[in-house]
């Protein structure tokens, strides 16, 4: 079931519909516009996920292309890789920002 849901979310038809929905309020993905079912919520998160991957392809991402995006295992691997890369980058930035200078100096008062 979830592989089919992903296939549908990855399709150009649904991606176009999803992009249009984000742009203008008049287009609806489902009959209901609130109180979404679990299946609808899962589908929405897959739509968003594939939307981001398509965006990465459009901006020249080397590790992903139109063929690889059709393979759920390659997409999962790519997302894990990207997450790990971001984690490492954040860690590096935090350590670079650490100058070692204390922001508050506490001295014990002499009696």
């Amino acid at each position, binding site marked *: *079931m*979830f592989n*089919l*849901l992903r*296939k*549908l979310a990855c399709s150009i038809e649904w991606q176009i519909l999803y992009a249009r929905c984000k742009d203008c309020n008049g287009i609806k993905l*489902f*009959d*209901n516009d609130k*109180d*979404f*079912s*679990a*299946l*609808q*919520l*899962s*589908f929405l998160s897959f739509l968003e996920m594939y939307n981001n991957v398509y965006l990465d392809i459009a901006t020249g991402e080397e*590790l992903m292309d139109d063929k690889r995006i059709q393979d759920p*295992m*390659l997409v*999962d*691997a*790519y997302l*894990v*890789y*990207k997450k*790990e890369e971001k984690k490492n980058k954040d860690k590096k930035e935090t350590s670079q920002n650490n100058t070692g200078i204390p922001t508050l100096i506490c001295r014990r008062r002499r009696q």
Partner: protein
Amino acid sequence: MEDKSKEQIIKETSQKLIELNKLEELEHLLKNNTIEFEEEGITYRVRKPTYAERQENSKERSKRYLQLLKDDNYILRDQLIQIYKKRDINIEDMEKQIGALQSEIKQFQLKLAVAKDQKDIDILKEEINKLMEIQMGIIVKKSDLLSMCIESNLIDYSNQYIVYMTFEKKDEDKWVRVFNSFEEFLNNESSIIDKAVYYSSQLIFRREDYV
């Protein structure tokens, strides 16, 4: 390019048709937050529970919880884990194994993400599938072992109660409950309940709820 036999082409085409049908059915399920289906000329539907129904379910669950606590035939999850431990079945170890396998899968995924050669991709995918299969085996085993505890019993009971409340049939222009009481629902053995349970699970439970 490899020549395909007639049988192979027929097989692939019929597989594609089956998948297309499934995709169409899935699009139908996605259309709304209720699912309608027909059986022997009667229109049925399952829907999401209302706030009042969720409250009723919560009350029923509490009642059932107290009943199970008083019943000596049922024990809590932690007690069951301790009993298994004495019989050399370690649930905590199983959880650790599931976590360790996940880390191993992640390592292969990191390699797969940068792999370009098709041969390497196939090998890595095979490794990941193998590990996922082992991991799923442990998850299923753990879930089976714990299915006898009060907590699991309570989840099953609560899910069944939701299906009973939200399973309706069309009576002229009105939607009415299919079963007049929960007992009637539990005692009914028709396949229509299996269908209602399946559709209801699509409406209410997300992927992470299954694991």
